């Protein structure tokens, strides 16, 4: 028994190191003086000295703020759109015959299987015509495709978990459909709403394919980071990477209790 426990802790330790190491490297290249990182053929694995100089320098040389603001706005639009379409669709699907609902769910699932890059190029061609190319609204509209199916699944799962009698009782007591939805059903699915909003937000924050194709001239942060990497600006890139990673890590840690396999598979049951 003793040996097995030691084995378990050894595996836990090794896995934890593997998963944390890349973030540790990001920390090193951001805070250790350049002479110990990029200046070496074999950079030091431990923080031999710490400095803020790298980050300060990169803030002086390039604009990090604008792409971040853009990403923030786009993510907000995407998350709002997810709720605006996901809540009604999830509610509607929970109310119709489950056979038909499942067909629609499968249809939405097919959208997730459409390769982003395949869909994005014709969209870009259309968006040039209607003036949404190189435009934040254009990015948000296209990125919504990535998150909408999942949002509908999550909301559907939420609405299905409400006992039918509650809604029916409200209707018997004279509440209209919208009143019942707003006063009874939605307050009961607040966790699903939060998960939908945050997952959509995070997905958009991370999304690269649509952003680089629809709006190369008005880049969000992932596209800008890609630009820095290809233009061989590693200090700027690392400062940028660090700034955007810290909030998302905090968010992921908070989200952890909501992150359940059932949500991520969109309520699909094997």
């Amino acid at each position: 028994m003793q040996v097995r426990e030691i084995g378990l802790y050894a595996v836990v330790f090794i896995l934890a190191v593997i998963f944390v190491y890349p973030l540790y490297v990001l920390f090193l290249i951001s805070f250790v003086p350049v002479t110990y990182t990029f200046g070496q053929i074999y950079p030091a694995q431990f923080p031999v000295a710490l400095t803020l100089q790298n980050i300060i320098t990169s803030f002086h040389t390039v604009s990090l703020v604008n792409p971040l603001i853009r990403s923030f706005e786009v993510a907000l639009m995407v998350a709002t759109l997810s709720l605006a379409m996901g809540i009604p669709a999830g509610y509607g699907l929970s109310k119709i015959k489950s056979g038909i609902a499942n067909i629609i769910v499968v249809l939405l699932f097919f959208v997730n299987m459409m390769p982003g890059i395949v869909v994005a190029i014709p969209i870009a061609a259309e968006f040039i015509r209607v003036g949404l190319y190189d435009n934040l609204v254009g990015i948000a509209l296209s990125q919504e495709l990535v998150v909408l199916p999942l949002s509908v699944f999550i909301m559907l799962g939420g609405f299905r978990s409400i006992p039918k009698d509650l809604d029916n009782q409200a209707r018997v007591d004279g509440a209209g459909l919208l009143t019942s939805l707003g006063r009874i059903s939605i307050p009961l699915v607040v966790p699903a709403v939060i998960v939908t909003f945050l997952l959509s937000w995070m997905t958009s924050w991370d999304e690269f394919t649509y952003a680089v194709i629809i709006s190369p001239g008005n880049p969000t942060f992932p596209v800008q980071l890609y630009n820095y990497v290809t233009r061989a600006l590693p200090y700027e890139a690392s400062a940028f990477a660090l700034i955007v990673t810290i909030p998302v890590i905090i968010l992921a840690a908070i989200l952890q209790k909501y992150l359940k396999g059932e949500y991520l598979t969109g309520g699909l049951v094997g």
Partner: protein
Amino acid sequence: MNDADSFSTPDVDRRNGGIRKQFQWKETYTYFMFIVPALAYVIALSFYPAAEAVFGSFQTPTKHFVLSNYSAVVSMGLVTSVVDTVIVSIGALVIQFLLALAIATILTKKFVGKGAFSTLIILPFGVATVVSGFIFSIVFSAVGGYANSFLVSLGLHPVNWYSNRYSEMVIVMFSDSWKNTPLVALILLSGLTSLSPTLRESAMVDGAGPLRRFLYITAPNVKGTMAIAMMIRGVSEFNIFALPLILIGYHPILLTTLVYENYNLSSVTLYYSYAAAVFLLIFILVFSSVIIWAGGVKSYASS
């Protein structure tokens, strides 16, 4: 008739005063109206553009029907890009599933520091793909790379990770797995926790070892969950784009990077990119059909 229907009909009758009997607006239609925006959205912005790409792959800029777009992408190395895409996808899936299975199994056990462990494991899920690509480009860089620095500190020879296309693809697989294993682990964990512990215990009492317990008890019961995780990850794996673009550029070229390399809205190569895109589309449809057929994803969201 479902519950909502039979319940609501009297309500509608009362409102309309029973005057219009020929056509009755059932409440089910109202519920359908709730779904319409989402459906219209995906048809307009996903299905329609996909069809446009398929048509575009057979067109010239002057809208003539041709097959030359396909011969153009074949001469650009379409065949190798298909092979490489398959290698990267399958390799990454294998790494992710082995790691995720280990993590999920560990998380079903009780041990000190479990909370901290699960938080650490979930972190990469929150890291942007582009950021992870950037970090791994530094880890595996030939000069000033942390992987080589580690090898040298162990007294081993440094490796030039960019010396051939196989090791380059390994970098991509590894970076992708780092970011996506947490997701797979979470999905598998939900399958493992739904498994009754008494099943495993009784198998243990009957003398089944760990391997046989896994093969005959655990694996058949998490098969559905596995298929779903495989489907979700497999499709994204074929679509892998930002990571190879940052880590290895266009050498070796994958299907997605081949599409992107030809993407130019004001040039004939736009139609080449459509042709490459069609291959990607076919690929993903074939893959998901195989998974659905083999994995037995029987019921969708049937609660």
